[in-house]
């Protein structure tokens, strides 16, 4: 098995304090290999999104370790974590989350504004990313001028533009029709297979999960074995 890019050990996340405590993750341990396409499945409230957020460095665990590419993300300061996210993680969200006043090109360019790249270098990166998702002809369109599927592909281009190793997608097809959803999932699959990106997909849809090479199930914050029993 290739070297794990994500190593999760005894990871816990507890929301709230005092009497009202919600245990979103309960001592979860998981390895994700480089170049893997993993689907995290589970019902609502199972902790799959929380796990994804901690791996992606936008949330912090209350216990355990989450090491991504050799970095214990929980130990980074907020500023270092922001830099780390910029360089290592590409995000795809359910609701696309494009900036409405920026064109497709400018939305994709956004993470590059934090780099030292020149305008022409940024342009070539953005064009390549939009080309990859099949939207080279929609660069000047505003989000409201795009379909849901196209918006999500712009979001994927934005996630790819920094060429991160890790691509995290939280219910990326939740707001799409079946056809657009299949397009987006195929794109993620292609990025995994052809570009070697490690993709972590959170979904509760078995059909979406079928695009992944491996599926991990969560329930009530605990990781289940292949036979449905708890670790």
């Amino acid at each position, binding site marked *: 098995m290739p070297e794990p890019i994500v190593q999760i050990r005894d990871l816990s996340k507890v929301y709230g304090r005092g009497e009202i405590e919600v245990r979103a993750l309960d001592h979860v341990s998981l390895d994700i290999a480089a170049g893997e396409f993993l689907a995290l499945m589970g019902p609502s409230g199972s902790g799959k999104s929380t796990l994804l*957020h901690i791996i992606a460095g*936008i949330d912090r665990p209350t216990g355990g370790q989450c090491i991504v590419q050799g970095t214990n993300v929980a130990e980074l300061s907020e500023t270092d974590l*922001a830099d780390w996210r910029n360089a290592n993680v590409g995000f795809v969200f359910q609701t696309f989350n494009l900036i409405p006043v920026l064109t497709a090109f400018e939305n994709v360019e956004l993470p590059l504004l934090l780099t030292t790249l020149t305008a022409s270098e940024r342009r070539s990166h953005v064009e390549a990313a939009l080309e990859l998702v099949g939207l080279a002809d929609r660069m000047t369109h505003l989000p409201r001028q795009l379909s849901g599927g196209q918006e999500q592909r712009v979001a994927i281009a934005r996630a790819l533009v920094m060429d991160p190793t890790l691509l995290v997608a939280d219910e990326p097809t939740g707001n799409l029709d079946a056809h657009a959803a299949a397009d987006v999932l195929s794109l993620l699959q292609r990025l995994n297979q052809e570009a070697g990106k490690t993709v972590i997909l959170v979904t509760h849809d078995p059909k979406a999960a079928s695009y992944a090479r491996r599926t991990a199930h969560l329930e009530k914050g605990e990781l289940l074995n292949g036979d449905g029993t708890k670790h």
Partner: protein
Amino acid sequence: MTIPGFILRNALRNKRRLVLTVLSVALSLFLFTTLQTALHLMAHPPTTEEAALRIATRHRVSLANVLPVKYQLRIERLPGVKYCSKFTFFGGIYKDQSHSNFAQFAVDADRILRIFSEMIVPRQQEEAFVKEKTACIVGAKLMERFGWKIGDRITFQGTIWGCDPELTIRGVYHGQGIDETLVFFHHDYFDELMGDRGLVGTFWTKAESAEAIPTLIDQIDAAFRNTDAETKTETERAFQLEFISMLGNVKLFIGSISTVIVFTMLLVTASTMSMAIRERSREMAILKAVGFNGTQIFSLILAESFGLAMTGGLLGCFGAKLLFTHVDVYKLSHGNVPMFPVTTDVIALGLLVALGLGVVSSLAPARASIKTTVVEGLKELD
């Protein structure tokens, strides 16, 4: 795209709100600039280089008390004195009360234009004024206001003094940075009307040099110490400020209104910025997710708020400057305000207020935005 371009795009996303907010800041800064100009005029009355050579002597008790005319001779004999003139405020009514918001002074006709040399009168007119006891010279703005012409006869009804001088306009004065709304007539004529009682309001003296002034002030006051009418002599500037101080708490009143305006502006701008950022909380979360850190988020919000406040500030401050430069304030105020120069100092203060406004109004939304985690921010959209 550049970061400034991104900030501009964000600022322009709700154009109606932007325009209304900028206009409210601009209007407030316009009022602020206007009030500060009024305050500035009170604290720093218009002055000229010549003013540094002038001193005023009045009764030690108050301006309302008069001095004996014989003091003039003693003042004139002091070393360092170039000219000395009687200078008595007449305060008469022209036609009716509503037309009488300008001052008239009884002066020594042959000296007044030497002492106030920034008042420019054509030689022929000056000679005509000096020669004729009932002649007067009038400021150019006042002439224009009432449509007077040289040779017109005007009568003032005395309110302080029991006489009604009937004067003939023989000259018009004008000059840079001076009040062109005054009337000067012969003190001899005033004395005659008053029955030669020898009463004078103040004496104005022009010194030979600015260096001579401190000594002169001491010498004049010392000369009349332990008399029935002791004097108080001071520089023109000190005299003007003392005169203004008689307006009481007007300065405090104007200062209070300015403070209220600034505070109201702060609330309006802070509220707008809070609303604008609150509407964008999920976008802020996305920015953080793609790598923007707290400082960068703060900078984006600060720049937007600063831009908004400064645009309003520039419009308001320079709008006031433009308006008061090109509008005849004297006419607009029906003769109550002879001049209203918006100075660079006042504009700088207005822009400083706008700058502070931009910074302070961005603090709360920026703090909230930085404190909100990416996950919390993203949840706000669901």
